C-alpha cells in the first residue's frame, strides 16, 4: 500500500447482521422455550405460547414421576435399575432446565438479542476479517449442535426400534397370547403406570405418550445445552474479534481519519499532511524516539509544520478513539459474560452435580447387562450423549478463560511505544482488567473448566466401584 493509493485502499465496510444461533433458537422454539412474542406481553399469542411451555413441563413431570415409581417398584434388579435411573436423572434435569428458563425467559432473550443484531453483533465490527471470525464462530456452533443432535436422534430411534421389536408381534396379533415364552410388551423407556400395561389399547396409548416424551425430552435437554454452549462459543468468538481490533488499531485509526476527512472539505494543505501521515507499517521508525513523533514518520516539510502537527494530534486522537471503541467492546463483552453467569449458574450447578452420576450409571449398565447388537449400540450412543452433556461446557469454559487472558497479550501488540502518555495509561488499566481470569461457574462451586471435567470422571469412577460393590453384596 503506497502513499498515492491511500484514498482507495481502505474500502468502507458496511456491517452486516447475521442470524447467529438460528438453529438453536428454532429448536428451543419448537419445545416451548423461546417465546417469540416476549416483547409484547398483551398479545394473546404470548399467553398461548406460555400455556404450551407449562403443558410441556407438566408432561415431563408426569413421565418423571412414572419413572421414579418404576425405580421404587423394581428395587433390587440392578441391571435395569441403572438405565432407568439414568433416564429418570435426565428427565429430572430437563424439568429443572425448563423451569429455570421459563423463569428467566425475558432476560435470556434480551441477552441473546445483543448477539443477534444488538450491541455485540455488528456495531463493533469494522472490517471484513472480523466479520469472518464471527461467521466462523457461528459455523462452529452449528457444527457442534448438529453433531450432538445427530447422536441424540440416533439413540432415540434406537430406543424406539428396540421397543417396537419386542412388541410388534403382540400388537399385530401374530402370536398367540397364551403361548409359553411369549415376550411381554415393553415400552421404549421403563416406566410404571397404574394401569394394566399388557392390554393392547393401554399399551398403544402409553406407547404414543412415550414416543412424544422420547422425541421432546432430548430436544429440550439437548436444545438447552447447545443453546448455552452456543452463547459461550460466541463470547469466545467476540474475544477473538476484540483481539483482532486491538492488533489492527492503527488501521482503524486510519479508517476513522478517512471517514472524518471525507466529510470535511479538504484543502490542498491538509491533503499533503494527510499523505505524509498515513504510512505503511514497514517504514523505519528508529528516528522517532528522538523526534518524539507520535504515529508519524519524520517531518519532511517544515513549511507545513502547523498543518503537520494538527494532523499528528488528529491521528493521536483517532487512535485513542479506536482504543475507546475497543474498551467499550470489552466492557460489553464482560457484561454479556456476567449476564450468562447470572442466568445459567444455578442450572449448571444441577447439571454438574448429576453428570458424574449419569456417566457412572450408564457405564454400570453397559458392563453389567448382557445385551447385544442394537441394544448395546444404543446404550453406547447414550454413553456418548452423557459425555457430551458435560464436555462442551468444560471445554468452551476453558476456552473463554484463555481468550479473555489473550486480550492482555494482544494489548502488548498495539503501537504503545510510539503512543502518548494518555494511550499508555489507558493501556495499563485495560491490561490489569484483562489479566483477571474470566470464569463461568456452576453455582459458584463448579468452575466450567477441563479440570472440573477431569474431577467428574474420577468421581464417576468411584461411584461405579461403589455400585459394583453394592450389586455384588
Amino acid at each position, binding site marked *: 500500500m503506497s502513499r498515492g493509493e491511500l484514498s482507495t485502499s481502505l474500502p468502507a465496510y458496511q456491517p452486516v447482521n447475521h442470524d447467529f444461533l438460528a438453529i438453536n433458537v428454532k429448536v428451543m422454539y419448537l419445545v416451548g422455550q423461546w417465546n417469540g412474542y416476549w416483547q409484547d406481553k398483551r398479545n394473546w399469542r404470548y399467553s398461548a405460547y406460555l400455556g404450551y411451555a407449562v403443558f410441556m413441563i407438566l408432561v415431563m413431570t408426569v413421565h418423571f414421576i412414572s419413572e421414579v415409581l418404576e425405580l421404587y417398584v423394581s428395587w433390587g434388579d440392578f441391571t435395569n435399575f441403572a438405565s432407568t435411573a439414568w433416564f429418570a436423572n435426565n428427565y429430572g434435569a430437563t424439568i429443572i432446565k425448563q423451569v429455570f428458563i421459563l423463569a428467566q425467559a425475558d432476560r435470556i432473550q434480551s441477552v441473546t438479542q445483543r448477539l443477534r443484531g444488538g450491541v455485540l453483533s455488528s456495531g463493533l465490527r469494522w472490517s471484513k476479517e472480523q466479520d469472518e471470525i464471527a461467521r466462523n464462530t457461528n459455523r462452529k456452533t452449528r457444527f457442534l449442535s448438529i453433531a450432538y443432535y445427530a447422536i441424540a436422534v440416533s439413540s432415540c430411534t434406537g430406543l424406539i426400534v428396540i421397543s417396537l421389536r419386542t412388541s410388534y408381534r403382540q400388537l399385530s396379533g401374530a402370536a398367540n397370547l397364551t403361548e409359553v415364552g411369549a415376550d411381554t410388551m415393553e415400552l421404549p423407556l421403563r416406566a410404571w403406570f397404574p394401569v394394566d400395561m399388557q392390554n393392547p389399547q393401554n399399551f398403544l396409548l402409553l406407547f404414543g405418550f412415550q414416543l412424544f416424551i422420547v422425541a421432546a425430552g432430548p430436544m429440550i435437554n439437548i436444545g438447552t445445552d447447545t443453546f448455552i454452549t452456543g452463547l459461550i462459543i460466541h463470547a469466545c468468538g467476540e474475544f477473538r474479534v476484540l483481539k483482532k481490533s486491538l492488533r489492527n488499531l492503527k488501521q482503524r485509526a486510519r479508517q476513522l481519519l478517512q471517514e472524518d476527512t471525507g466529510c470535511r472539505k479538504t484543502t490542498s494543505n491538509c491533503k499533503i499532511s494527510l499523505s505524509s501521515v498515513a504510512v505503511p507499517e514497514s517504514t523505519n521508525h528508529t528516528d522517532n524516539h528522538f523526534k518524539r513523533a507520535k504515529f508519524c514518520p519524520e517531518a519532511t516539510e517544515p513549511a507545513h509544520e502547523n498543518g503537520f502537527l494538527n494532523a499528528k494530534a488528529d491521528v493521536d486522537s483517532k487512535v485513542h478513539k479506536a482504543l475507546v471503541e475497543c474498551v467499550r467492546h470489552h466492557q460489553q463483552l*464482560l457484561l454479556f459474560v456476567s449476564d450468562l453467569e447470572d442466568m445459567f449458574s444455578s442450572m449448571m450447578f444441577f447439571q454438574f452435580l448429576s453428570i458424574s452420576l449419569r456417566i457412572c450409571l450408564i457405564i454400570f449398565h453397559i458392563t453389567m447387562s448382557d445385551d447385544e447388537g442394537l441394544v448395546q449400540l444404543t446404550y453406547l450412543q447414550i454413553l456418548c450423549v452423557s459425555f457430551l452433556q458435560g464436555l462442551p461446557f468444560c471445554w468452551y469454559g476453558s476456552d473463554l478463560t484463555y481468550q479473555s487472558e489473550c486480550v492482555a497479550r494482544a494489548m502488548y501488540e498495539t503501537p504503545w511505544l510510539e503512543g502518548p502518555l494518555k494511550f499508555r495509561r489507558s493501556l495499563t488499566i485495560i491490561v490489569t482488567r484483562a489479566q483477571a481470569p474470566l470464569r463461568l461457574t456452576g453455582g459458584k*462451586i463448579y468452575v466450567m473448566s477441563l479440570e472440573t471435567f477431569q474431577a467428574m470422571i474420577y468421581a464417576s469412577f468411584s461411584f461405579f466401584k461403589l455400585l459394583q460393590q453394592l450389586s455384588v453384596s
Partner: protein
Amino acid sequence: MYKFRLHGLVADMWPLIRIMQMTGFFLLDYHEDMSFGWTSIRAGYAGSISGLMVIQFALIFINLMKQSDDVNDLTANTITVLFFVHSLVKFFYFALRRGKFYRTLATWNNANSHPLFSENHSRHHATAVGSMRRLVMYVGIGIIISGFAWTIITFVGDSVHEIPDPENANETIFEEVPRLMLRSWYPWNALSGGGYVVSFVIQILWLFLALSHAMMMDTMFCCWLIYTCQQLVHLKEIMKPLMELSASLDTLVPHSAELFRAVSATTNNPITSGDGDGIRAIYSNQHDFSNFRLNTGALANINSGSVGPNGLTKKQEVLVRSAIKYWVERHKHVVRFVSNIGDTYGSALLLHMLISTVTLTLLAYQATKIEAANVYACTVIGYLVYTLAQVFLFCFFGNRLIEESSSVMEAAYSCQWYDGSEEAKTFIQIVCQQCQKAMSISGAKFFTVSLDLFASVLGAVVTYFMVLVQLN
C-alpha cells in the same frame, strides 16, 4: 470519667453483644456503669458460667472414659465430646483474646464521610444493620430449635445401652441409663427422683448455653463480614458518579494539602479508643468532610467566582478531588478492618476446622451403621447436618467477601473511565491494580475461608463414607 457512647460497630451489633453478655461471655466492656462493683459482679457471673461449662464437660469426659470398652459407646461419646469442645474452645478463645475483639469492634468508630455520598452510605449502612440483625435472629431460632429437638428426641425410644452380660460373656444385655440429653457421669444417682431432676435442669441449661457459645462467636464473625461487604458495595456504587464528576476535570494538580488543611478547630475529633496508630495512619488528617467549609483558611484566597479551563469552578474541582480522597481512604479503612478480622478470628477458625474434620470422620463411620430410620439414624443425621451447617455459615460469608472485593475492579473498569481526566485515570489504574487480588479471611494462613473449603469438606465426608462402606 468514662463516658459511654454507643457508636460505630458496637451500636450496629448491639443485640448480639447483649446476647453474648447474657450467655456469659467475658464481654465486660460496653456498659453504662463501669464502676468496680458492677464490673466484679459481671466478671463473677461470667466466671460462674465458665465454671459450670467446664465442670459439666469434665463429667461428660469422665463418662467417656468409663464407657470406653464398647466401641459403639466410645464412638458415640467421642462425637458428643468433640461436638461440645467447640463451645469451650470458643468461650476461652474469646476470654483470652478480648483485646483483639474490642479492637476490631472499635474499628469503625472514626469513619470519614463526604457530603456527595452520605445518602448512599447511610442506605447501605441501614441494609448492613438489617442483615446483621436478621442473621442473629435466624441463628438464635436455629439454636432454640436444635435445643428443643435434642430434648424431645431424648424422650423417644428406649434409654438403654448394650453391655456384655455379666453371666454369659458371649451375650449382651441392655442396661438402663438415665434418660438425659447427654451421657454424663454424676456423683449422685441420676436414674430417678431428685437426682434426675437436678441433672435434667443442669443439662438443659448447659445444652442451650453450649450451643449459643459456639454459634454466637461465628455469628459475630459473619456480621463483621456482612458489614464489610456492604461497605464494598457502597464503594462500587459511588465509582460511577465519581467518574462522571471528574469527566471534565483539568489535568493540573493543585496543592491538595493546603486546600484541606484549613478547617476550623472545633471540628477536630480526637480519637478516643480503638486502633491507636493504625487507623490514624490511614487518614492524612482527621477532618470530617461533612464540616467542609469552602470559605475558610487558604480557600479564601481562591476566587470563588473564577472558572477553570473546563468550565468547572475551583470549588467543584476541590469537591471532586475530595471525593476521590474519600473513596481511597474508605477503601483503606475496609482493608484495615478485614485484616483486623483475620487477625482476631483466624486461629479460632483453624481450631474449628481441625475439630470438625475429626468429628465428621467419626460421623461418617457412624453413618455406615445405619440400618433403618430409627432414633439412631436421626441423631447421626442431626449431628452431621449441624456440623456441616456450622462450617457452611462462615464459608458462605467468607466467599461473599472474596466475591465483593474482587468485583471492585470490575466496577472500576465498567464505568466511563476513558472520558475522565488524567488524575481520574491514574486513580482507576491504581484501584484496578490494588483490587486485583481479592480480600479473603484465612484460617491462620492454613486455608482460605470460601465455599471451596466447604465443598472439599463435603467431598471428604462422602469419600470417607464410601470407603468405610466398602470396608464393611
